[in-house]
């Protein structure tokens, strides 16, 4: 059945792609046909006849086309308007976009490697940058940071120079003296913080980092008051200021202002009135607190402090100083030296005599360290920041290099397109614009993706590094500028090869495919070597760091640290608690023992006494212990015996020492050849107490330090601050429950809070673990990006050698041979990278290990593992590509053009 509409549509379709007719023309012709057919229908013709007659009248298509073409091509040239010019530019740009997208789509895997590689590299770099920036911006949020200092006392050492490190703990009287006697000091603020139990009404107490500070704290430092008056909040000794999160914890729904908080100080709860809420200290603040209490309240609850308020040798508080505007560190230095001389004259004289210095030499003083420098100088190690920045830049450089070589490699395949474009009239400028535009487009895409990846993976990164970095840091002006710089340089270099070289070729050469594209081969090879050198270096570092961390965890420490729970008993009657706990838990089968000590285990530094005799310095760590301490920790005796509670003399006049102490005295003085029954030489405090036993050395310090001299006594030389409970490893939960019940019976007003000893000991290495984690991730990404780059290069190379491989195969080469042929070239580069990386890795890791007193041996095994891993990964990536090319049917590859 004839359908007029269908017929007309078919007729239109037949002309649609004929360039002689515009759509407008077709519309007009169709209208004509319809008019005519209508007229014929009125005369009584049927549709089909009318349609056929009509087409007849329209004339032969050829004639019609000729006439239309005449009009089209001879149409007089319109005046060129700006709009017109823009229009054609837009059309051209649209074409560039279309071609760019088509090329990307056609080579999906390259495009992915190309863009994704740069994005990942950038993301890693940005995260590392954020971390370093956080390190470098520590404490800079204080508006008055330039005027804020922390004071430390320094004295001369053997060289006659003031020793920069000094002591940051000061007597209580220092701050008032600074304000009164040193002009230029606006305020001196004492800071002393500990964990205290706090509660609101009778709710369960929580452990809060409570810090005693002088009232000027809230006005001089940059912590923002969210409620209450900063100037007066800490005026009254019974006031307390809570951090925002502590306020939330203690007061769920009520307004804390004006309410009471009870703080457990020196054995009993004391009521404070909340007079302010202050913002939580940011993660990059040296001063960390959860509640602030007036310093005036401190001596009121600790009689020791009260007694020693004017004792200049009782050094317990950190002291910060705010200088008046315009006053510099150098301005106050003389006054500080005077103050030091006034109170420490004996020390100065001693030092002058000791080192034979003249009376004019400043043998000791107070020095100020600017707030902004504290973190990097005292807490953190700035070298780590530089190393990290180096790694970040290294990864970024690898990613950029990959991006460039891959972009260049891909564009080399487009010589044909350049030829065609030139043949139909493109000039060089247009081609340059096209290729550079394309390179910039890809770069922008990769950078945006990288930024997105960085933001998305920030939570994971924060978890790994145990930091609290905000993604807003990614949009700091410096980062944005750096990104723009990166965008311009990467895009420029990546686009330069096709833009400058390809666009110069004569079309006839590119079209006849006679062009040989060798490209920047030496450069590419060098870049691959650098990439793998860096990757292998990072991988070896990861392995060494991991091995050392495992070593610290599994090393025999000389005592049994497993299944021991530590309960802190600061400010409590530790000894009394232990005795009651022992009685209560004696009948518990799953609790294997209870003991106590003044010190925990696994700390750094020394806790005890320090004295000189005959120009020789002695440091002895003092442990106040329970009699069963050595049994509890399974520490063996070399000679003598342990404490016996039944001998009354043991509780006052007996000491146990470790081998290190005996060795120390033997080496320095030739004393203690036969220690049992002797006193500790030259030591006044323990005069009269006899050594009754010598224990084997055990690692009570962190493993950065060698085992130091130590003495153990029942006598209270040092408070009993830690309670240890050994649990039955087969019934840990039951034993814990029993311990908790016993604790609740013995110390009802303090909640049971415990940690496992091996956990607390491991926490000392948190910094190293953090670093090894960062290096582990960095090395993973470095090798990942390097392999991506290698994959891209291998793909390009095999594509270029398709024909060669085909011919070789036809002539009888086996697949493994072909794979070897292609892979060999690349693997040599990887081997070269390994050769560069291994010595560097050895030196750097040796330096890192020097920090540990007990370290692993740097054998060839770890380096071998790193090298084999890198080589294996590279080989598998390259071989995969080569295998695919070698497996291809030679008929296909030889036809390939």
């Amino acid at each position: 059945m004839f359908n007029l509409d269908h017929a007309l549509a078919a007729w239109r379709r037949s002309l649609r792609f004929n360039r002689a007719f515009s759509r407008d023309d077709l519309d007009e012709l169709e209208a004509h046909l319809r008019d005519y057919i209508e007229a014929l229908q009125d005369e009584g013709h049927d549709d089909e006849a009318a349609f056929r007659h009509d087409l007849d009248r329209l004339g032969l298509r050829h004639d019609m086309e000729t006439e239309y073409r005449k009009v089209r091509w001879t149409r007089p040239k319109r005046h060129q308007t700006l709009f017109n010019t823009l229009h054609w530019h837009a059309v051209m740009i649209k074409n560039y976009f279309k071609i760019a997208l088509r090329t990307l789509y056609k080579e999906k895997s390259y495009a992915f490697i190309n863009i994704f590689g740069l994005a990942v590299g950038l993301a890693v770099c940005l995260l590392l940058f954020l971390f370093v920036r956080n390190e470098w911006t520590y404490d800079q949020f204080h508006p008055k940071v330039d005027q804020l200092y922390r004071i430390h006392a320094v004295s001369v050492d053997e060289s006659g120079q003031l020793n920069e490190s000094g002591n940051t703990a000061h007597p209580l009287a220092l701050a008032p003296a600074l304000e009164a006697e040193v002009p230029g000091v606006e305020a001196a603020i004492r800071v002393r913080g500990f964990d205290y139990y706090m509660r609101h009404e009778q709710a369960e107490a929580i452990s809060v980092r409570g810090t005693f500070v002088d009232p000027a704290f809230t006005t001089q430092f940059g912590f923002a008051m969210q409620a209450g008056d900063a100037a007066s909040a800490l005026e009254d000794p019974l006031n307390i200021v809570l951090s925002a999160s502590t306020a939330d914890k203690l007061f769920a729904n009520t307004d804390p202002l004006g309410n009471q908080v009870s703080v457990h100080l020196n054995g009993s709860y004391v009521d404070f009135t909340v007079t302010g809420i202050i913002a939580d200290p940011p993660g990059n603040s040296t001063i960390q607190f959860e509640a602030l209490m007036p310093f005036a309240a401190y001596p009121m609850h600790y009689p020791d402090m009260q007694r020693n308020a004017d004792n200049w040798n009782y050094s317990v508080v950190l002291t910060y100083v705010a200088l008046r505007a315009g006053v510099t560190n150098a301005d106050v230095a003389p006054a500080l030296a005077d103050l030091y001389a006034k109170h420490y004259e004996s020390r100065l004289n001693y030092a002058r005599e000791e080192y034979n210095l003249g009376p004019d030499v400043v043998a000791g003083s107070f020095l100020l360290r600017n707030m902004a420098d504290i973190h990097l100088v005292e807490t953190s190690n700035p070298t780590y920041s530089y190393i990290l920045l180096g790694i970040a830049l290294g990864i970024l450089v690898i990613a950029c290099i990959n991006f460039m070589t891959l972009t260049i490699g891909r564009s080399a395949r487009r010589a044909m397109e350049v030829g065609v474009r030139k043949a139909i009239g493109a000039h060089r400028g247009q081609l340059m614009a096209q290729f550079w535009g394309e390179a910039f487009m890809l770069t922008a895409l990769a950078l945006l993706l990288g930024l997105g990846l960085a933001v998305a993976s920030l939570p994971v990164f924060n978890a790994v590094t145990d930091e609290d970095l905000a993604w807003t840091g990614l949009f700091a002006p410096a980062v944005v500028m750096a990104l723009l710089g990166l965008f311009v340089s990467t895009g420029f270099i990546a686009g330069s090869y096709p833009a400058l070289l390809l666009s110069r070729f004569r079309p006839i050469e590119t079209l006849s495919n006679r062009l040989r594209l060798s490209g920047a081969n030496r450069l590419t090879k060098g870049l691959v070597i650098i990439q793998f050198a860096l990757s292998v270096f990072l991988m070896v570092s990861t392995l060494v760091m991991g091995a050392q961390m495992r070593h610290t965890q599994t090393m025999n420490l000389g005592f049994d640290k497993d299944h021991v729970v530590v309960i802190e008993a600061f400010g409590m009657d530790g000894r009394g608690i232990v005795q009651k706990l022992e009685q209560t838990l004696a009948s518990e089968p799953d609790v294997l023992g209870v003991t106590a000590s003044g010190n925990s285990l696994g700390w750094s530094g020394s806790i005890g006494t320090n004295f000189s005799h005959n120009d020789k310095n002695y440091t002895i760590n003092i442990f106040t212990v329970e009699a069963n301490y050595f049994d509890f920790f399974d520490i063996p005796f070399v000679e003598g015996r342990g404490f016996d509670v039944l001998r009354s003399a043991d509780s006052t006049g007996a000491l146990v020492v470790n081998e290190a102490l005996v060795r120390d005295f033997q080496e320095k003085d030739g004393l203690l050849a036969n220690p049992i029954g002797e006193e500790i030489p030259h030591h006044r405090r323990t005069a009269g107490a006899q050594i009754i036993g010598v224990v084997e050395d055990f690692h009570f310090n962190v493993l950065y330090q060698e085992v130091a001299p130590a003495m153990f006594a029942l006598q209270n030389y040092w408070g009993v601050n830690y309670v240890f409970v050994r649990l039955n490893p087969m019934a840990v939960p039951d034993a814990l429950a029993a311990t908790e019940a016993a604790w609740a019976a013995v110390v009802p007003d303090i909640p049971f809070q415990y940690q496992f000893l091996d956990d607390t000991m491991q926490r000392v290495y948190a910094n190293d673990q953090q670093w090894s984690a960062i290096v582990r991730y960095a090395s993973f990404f470095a090798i990942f990006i390097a392999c991506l780059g290698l994959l891209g290069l291998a793909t390009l190379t095999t594509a270029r050698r398709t024909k060669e491989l085909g011919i070789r195969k036809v002539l009888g080469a086996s697949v493994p041979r072909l794979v070897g042929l292609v892979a060999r070239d690349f693997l040599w580069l990887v081997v070269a990278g390994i050769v560069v990386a291994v010595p560097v890795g050895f030196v750097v890791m040796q330096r890192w290990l020097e920090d540990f007193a007990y370290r692993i041996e740097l054998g060839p095994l770890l380096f071998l593992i790193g090298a084999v891993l890198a080589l294996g990964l590279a080989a598998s990536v390259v071989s995969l590509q080569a295998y695919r090319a070698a497996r291809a049917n030679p008929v296909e590859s030889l036809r390939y053009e």
Partner: protein
Amino acid sequence: MLPKVLVAAAVRPIMLAILAQGESYGYQIIQRIHDLSDGKLAWSDGTLYPVLHRLEGEGLVRSTWRMSEAGRKRKYYRLTHAGQAALAQEQAHWFDMHAILLKLWPTPPQLALT
């Protein structure tokens, strides 16, 4: 039937003249040529449109798309001022030509005699 060459020369003044009588569209113009010439001016319809387009290109006519009464799209052509001037010129040329031929052919051909 008139020879093609002659038609080709005449179609331009004819078109202009028809449009001088008022706005019109393709089919109507072509029908009108048919009617006027009693079918002597035989030219395939499809090739008449390019002539209109060329006139438009020269700025002698202007076109607009509009809806017809039947509800279909139609392209209407209208003479511009330049077109009127061009028509006047064409008229002058044709009258000149006519005068020359009249002098040569004092009497009209006697078709009936042949």
